[in-house]
C-alpha cells in the first residue's frame, strides 16, 4: 500500500520529468519556458519532500522569481511569443538521442550497480539556523570563502551584463 508520501513523490517525479521532457520538445518557446518553470517547481517539491525546505525556498525564489522571469523577458525581447520554433534537423535529433540514450543507460547502469556507503555521523538537520551558522563560519565546516567567491562572481556577472546588454550605440544598419 502506498503511503501519501510515496504518492506525492511519484506525482512530483512525474511532473518534473514530464515537464522537463515537454520543455525540450515543444515548439512553442513560451510554453517551453512554462514547462521549465513547472519542472523546476517539481524539483522544489522534491526538495520539500526530502524536507530540505530551505533549498526548496531558494529554488522557488531564485528560479521562479529570477531566472525564469529573466528568460521570459528575454523571450519577449527577442521573439514573437507565439511563433513556432524551427524544427531541429532530423539527424541531429537522432545522434543526440543516441548519445543521450547511451549516456543515460551507462549512468543508470553504473549508479544502480554501485553500492553507496552511508555516513555514520549523526544527521545535521537542514534548518535555517544550521545553514546560517555554517555559511558564515570560517572554521572547518564553514562556507565563508565560497560565499565571498560567489559574491565576486555575481559582481563580475553584473558588470559583464551591464556592459554587454546596455551597449551605448546599438549597431544600426
Amino acid at each position, binding site marked *: 500500500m502506498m503511503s501519501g508520501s510515496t504518492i506525492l513523490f511519484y506525482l512530483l517525479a512525474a511532473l518534473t520529468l514530464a515537464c522537463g521532457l515537454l520543455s525540450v520538445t515543444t515548439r512553442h518557446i513560451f510554453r517551453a519556458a512554462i514547462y521549465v518553470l513547472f519542472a523546476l517547481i517539481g524539483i522544489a517539491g522534491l526538495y520539500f519532500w526530502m524536507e530540505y525546505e530551505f533549498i526548496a525556498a531558494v529554488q522557488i525564489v531564485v528560479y521562479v522569481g529570477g531566472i525564469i522571469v529573466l528568460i521570459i523577458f*528575454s523571450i519577449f525581447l527577442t521573439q514573437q511569443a507565439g511563433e513556432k520554433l524551427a524544427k531541429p534537423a532530423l539527424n541531429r535529433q537522432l545522434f543526440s538521442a543516441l548519445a543521450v540514450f547511451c549516456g543515460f543507460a551507462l549512468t543508470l547502469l553504473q549508479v544502480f550497480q554501485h553500492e553507496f556507503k552511508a555516513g555514520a555521523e549523526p544527521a545535521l538537520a537542514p534548518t535555517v539556523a544550521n545553514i546560517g551558522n555554517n555559511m558564515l563560519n570560517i572554521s572547518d565546516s564553514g562556507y565563508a570563502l565560497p560565499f565571498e567567491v560567489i559574491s565576486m562572481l555575481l559582481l563580475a556577472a553584473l558588470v559583464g551584463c551591464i556592459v554587454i546588454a546596455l551597449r551605448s550605440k546599438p549597431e544600426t544598419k
Partner: protein
Amino acid sequence: MMEPGLYHILFISAALFFIGIYGFFTRRNLITMLMSTELILNSVNLNFIAFNKYLWPGKMDGLFFTVFVIAIAAAEAAVGIAIIINLYRSHQSIDVASAEDLKY
C-alpha cells in the same frame, strides 16, 4: 512499489540530466538551449540533496553545493542572456544556426 528512496531520486535526476542534454543538443533557439542547461544544473542539485539526505547527513556539503550552484546558475543565465541579446542585436536572430560563421 518500493518506498521511494535514494535510487528513485537518482533515477529522476539522471533522467532530467539527460533530458536537459538532449534539449541542449537539439533546440535551435539559444534561449531554449539556456533553459536546457538550467535543467541540467537542477538535476545535479537534486543529486546533491539526495546524497546529502540519504547518505551523508552528518554535514551539509551537498546542501551548500546546491545553494551555490543555484547562485551560479543565476549568474550564468544572466550573462548568457546578455550575450544572447547582444547577439540578437547584431544577427537579428537567436537561432543557433545563424551564428556559425566561425568554423573549420
